C-alpha cells in the first residue's frame, strides 16, 4: 500500500496462536491444565519464571472452578499468545449455588491470610490470581463467565532520550510507523514526560513496538521535515465501543502546538469510522489541544505500590489528580438512565454541564426479601498499575457486605486505587448509591456511552472502609 494511503478501519486482529482445551471439572486434570499452560506460555515467549507464574494461576483457578463451577458442561481453557503477554481464559457455566464463590473476595479469611493454617481450599480468587500481572472475571452470557489471567513477557529496559530535539516544520503524519521508529519515539516520550503520563512500555521500547505490532495499541507518529520523530499518540480499544488514548507526546516544545494538533486530528480521523462510539483519555498530557475534548472531571490515583516511596503504603501517599477527557464520535440521540435519587444532584450537574440529554429515572434498592442471598461483583485487577475496577454483576442481600469485603481484600493485596463502575442502564445498579456511600465510594465521573448506556465511575476514598 502506498505510504500516503491511510488505512480504513483496522481489520480485525489477525488470528492469534492459541491452544484450547476442554476439561471436565475434575481435579484429576489439574496437571494437564498446568502443564499445558506452562508449555504454551514458553512457546508464546515467556521465560521459565513467567511460564511458571501462569501455570500456577491456571492450577489455582482450575482447582477453584472444580469446586464451584457447574458440572453440566466442560470448562474451556484457552491459552493464547497476546503478543507481549500470555493469557489463560477459563470459560464456564456457573450454577446458581456457586455464583457466590466467583466473588474475588469470597472465602478470604483476612485474619488467617498470613498464618500458615490458611486452608488452601478456602483461598479466594484474589489470592489464587496473585502470581498474575492482570486477572479478572467477566460475564459473556446470562450464565457464562470467563476467568482470565495474564502474565507479561520480559523486555529489557532502555535509557530514555532526554536530549533536546530541534525539529523543523512542516510536520506530517506517519500512519503506519515501523518498529524502529516506534522504539525511538517511545524513548523520546519517556525522556520528556513523567512515568504516570505514559504507558510503562515506553521505557521498554521493544515491548511498546510489539504491542503495536500485535494490535494491543495503535499508534500514529508525527515526523518533521527531515523525517525525524516529532510526536506520538497511541490508543487501544476498551470494550467494543470505546477507545482510550495516551498522549499526545510532543518532542520539540517549540513545535508542540502543531504536533499535538496533527496527532489528535489524525487519531480522531482513524477512529472515526470504526465501531468506537467514543474516545476517553487514559493518560492525557498537557499538550492535548484545547477544545477537542470535553473534561469529564478527574480521578485521584495513587499508582502502584512500588511508586510509593519510603515504605509508605499506597493508601497514605497523596495521590495525583488525573483529569478525564472525553469525546463522542457520533451524534447523541439522548437516553434514559436509572439512578438512586441520592445521585440525581451529581448526575444533573454533570449532564447539564456536558449538554447530554438524559431522562433520569429513579431507582430504589430492591426489597431485601425479594433478593437472592448473595451478590456478585466482577473484579479486574492490574497489579502493575495498582488499580482494581469492580463491576456489580448480580444483586443480593449481602451486596454492601460483599463490597466491603472486596475493598478490604483488595487493599490487603497492596492495591490502593479502587474504582467501581455502575452501568446506569440497569436499575438495580443505579439503585446501589446508599450501599456505595456507606462503603466509602464517592461518584466521580460519568462516562457517556461507555457501557450499555452511561457508566458512573465511583472511587473509593482512601482511609475510609
Amino acid at each position: 500500500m502506498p505510504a500516503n494511503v491511510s488505512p480504513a478501519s483496522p481489520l480485525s486482529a489477525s488470528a492469534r496462536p492459541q491452544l484450547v482445551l476442554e476439561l471436565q471439572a475434575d481435579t484429576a486434570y489439574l496437571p494437564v491444565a498446568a502443564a499445558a499452560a506452562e508449555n504454551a506460555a514458553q512457546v508464546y515467549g515467556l521465560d521459565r519464571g513467567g511460564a511458571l507464574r501462569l501455570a500456577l494461576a491456571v492450577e489455582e483457578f482450575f482447582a477453584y472452578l472444580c469446586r464451584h463451577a457447574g458440572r453440566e458442561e466442560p470448562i474451556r481453557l484457552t491459552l493464547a499468545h497476546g503478543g507481549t503477554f500470555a493469557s489463560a481464559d477459563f470459560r464456564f457455566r456457573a450454577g446458581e449455588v456457586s455464583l457466590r464463590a466467583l466473588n474475588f473476595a469470597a472465602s478470604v479469611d483476612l485474619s488467617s491470610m498470613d498464618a500458615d493454617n490458611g486452608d488452601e481450599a478456602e483461598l479466594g480468587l484474589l489470592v489464587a490470581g496473585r502470581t498474575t500481572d492482570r486477572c479478572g472475571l467477566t460475564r459473556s452470557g446470562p450464565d457464562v463467565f470467563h476467568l482470565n489471567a495474564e502474565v507479561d513477557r520480559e523486555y529489557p529496559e532502555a535509557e530514555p532520550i532526554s536530549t533536546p530535539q530541534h525539529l523543523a516544520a512542516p510536520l506530517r503524519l506517519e500512519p503506519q510507523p515501523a518498529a524502529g521508529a516506534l522504539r525511538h519515539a517511545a524513548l523520546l516520550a519517556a525522556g520528556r514526560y513523567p512515568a504516570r503520563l505514559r504507558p510503562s512500555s515506553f521505557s521498554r521500547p521493544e515491548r511498546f513496538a510489539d504491542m503495536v505490532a500485535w494490535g494491543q495499541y495503535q499508534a500514529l507518529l508525527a515526523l518533521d521535515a527531515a523525517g525525524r520523530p516529532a510526536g506520538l499518540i497511541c490508543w487501544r480499544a476498551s470494550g467494543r465501543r470505546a477507545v482510550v488514548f495516551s498522549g499526545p507526546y510532543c518532542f520539540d516544545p517549540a513545535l508542540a502546538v502543531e504536533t499535538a494538533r496533527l496527532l489528535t486530528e489524525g487519531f480522531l480521523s482513524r477512529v472515526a469510522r470504526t465501531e468506537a462510539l467514543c474516545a476517553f483519555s487514559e493518560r492525557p498530557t498537557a499538550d492535548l489541544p484545547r477544545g477537542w475534548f470535553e473534561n469529564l472531571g478527574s480521578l485521584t490515583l495513587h499508582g502502584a505500590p512500588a511508586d510509593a516511596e519510603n515504605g509508605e503504603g499506597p493508601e497514605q501517599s497523596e495521590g495525583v489528580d488525573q483529569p478525564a477527557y472525553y469525546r463522542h464520535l457520533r451524534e447523541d440521540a439522548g437516553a434514559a438512565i436509572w439512578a438512586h435519587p441520592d445521585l440525581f444532584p451529581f448526575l444533573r450537574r454533570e449532564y447539564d454541564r456536558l449538554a447530554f440529554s438524559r431522562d433520569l429515572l429513579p431507582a430504589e434498592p430492591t426489597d431485601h426479601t425479594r433478593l437472592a442471598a448473595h451478590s456478585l461483583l466482577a473484579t479486574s485487577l492490574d497489579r502493575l498499575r495498582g488499580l482494581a475496577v469492580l463491576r456489580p454483576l448480580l444483586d443480593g442481600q449481602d451486596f454492601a457486605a460483599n463490597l466491603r469485603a472486596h475493598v478490604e481484600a483488595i487493599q490487603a493485596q497492596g492495591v490502593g486505587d479502587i474504582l467501581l463502575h455502575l452501568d446506569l442502564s440497569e436499575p438495580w445498579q443505579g439503585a446501589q448509591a446508599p450501599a456505595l456511600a456507606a462503603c466509602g465510594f464517592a461518584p466521580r465521573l460519568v462516562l457517556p456511552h461507555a457501557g450499555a448506556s452511561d457508566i458512573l465511575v465511583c472511587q473509593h476514598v482512601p482511609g475510609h472502609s
Partner: protein
Amino acid sequence: MCPAIAELVPDYIRAFEAYTPSRPDPVLMRQYGVDHLHRLNNNENALGPPADARAVIEAFEPPRSAIYPSGDCYALRLALSERFGKDPERFLVGNGSCEVIASVIKAFCEKGDNIITADKTFAVYEWVAEFSGFEARLIPLSNWGFDPEAMLAAMDARTKILFVCNPNNPTGTWWDKGTMERFLRGVAGRAIVVIDEAYCEYVDDEAFPNGMELMERHPNVVVFRTFSKMYALAGLRVGYVCGQRDVVDYIRRTHIVYSVNSLGQPAAAAALADDAGHILATRRMVAEAKELLLPAFDALGLKYVSGAGNFVMVETPASDSLIYRQLMRRGVMVRTMTGFRFPNWIRVSLVQLPAMRDFLAAFGEVLQAVSTGPA
C-alpha cells in the same frame, strides 16, 4: 458446545460497524426538550419537490399500494432516456443511489480486489466495499479536493473501481473538465470510474464536466445521480446509474428488481419533466443562505469550506459532537463531521433564510457557552 453466532460471521463483518441513522424527529425533540427542529443535517432540499412531482404524490391512490411497481422502472427510464438522449437500457434505477453503489461493487469486485476513493468523502463507497470484504484505499484530500495523481498512483492490477464524488460531499470541491479528462486518460480504461453527481444540479459553471457526456468518450465511466437532493424526493428513495449499455448490463445482474416503489417512480419522472424553475429557485435559496452565513462565519472568525452543493462546512472551536448537542437543545440539527474524518467541523444544509437565522442565533449562543465553559 455449538458455535457462538459470532463464529459464523466473517471477520470483515465482525469488524464492521453498522451505520446508526438518527432517531425520528419527534423522539429527538422529546429527548432534547424542544418543540421544533430545523433539519440541517442531511442536505435535504427544504423547498420540497417540484410542482409536477408534488401533484403526482397528491394524486396517488391508496389501492395502488396493493400492486407491485414496475420491476425495472420502465416509465422512469423512458423519461430519463428522453431527458439525456440515451437508450433507456443504459439506465438502472435503484432505491436511492446508495443501492446502486452496492450493485456496482458487487458487479465488478471479487476477493482480493480493491476500490479507490478519498478519505474524506461520502462514506457509503468505503462502507460497502469493506462489509463486502474488499479493500477500500482512501486517498487523502488535497487542498479540500480529490487528488487525481495520488488516486492514480494507488491503482494496481486489483483495482476495479475508482469513486469520484463530483462535487464532493462535504467539501463542495469539484474537478473541472481538464482535470477530469486528464484523470480518465490516466486510468486508461483499466478500471471502472464512478462519478457520483449527487449534487451536480447545484453547479452552474461552464467548467463543470458532465458525466453524461464523458461516458460517450470513456466507456469505463458510469455516473450516479439521485432524486434525493435537488429534486427533494429523499423520502421516496430514487437514484440511478447510467453508463455504456454493456457496463449497465453487468451491473443489472447484481441488482435487486422491484426495489423502487410505485410512488417514487412516477414522482421522479414528473420531477424531471419541468425542473428548470425548481432548480433556479433552489439555487437562489442556496445563494441567499450563503450570503447570510459566510459573512457571519467571517465575523465569528471561523474557518469554513463552501463550494458547490446545498451545504457548508464550518470549523468549530469545540468538539463537533458537543456543538451538536448544544444546538439540538436549541432546536437545530446539524451533521457532525468527525465521521467524515473532519473532527471539530460541522456541516450545515443551506435552506430558507428564517431557518438560517435561527441557526445563526443558536450557533452564536453555543459558541459563547463553549468558550466560557470548562475546557
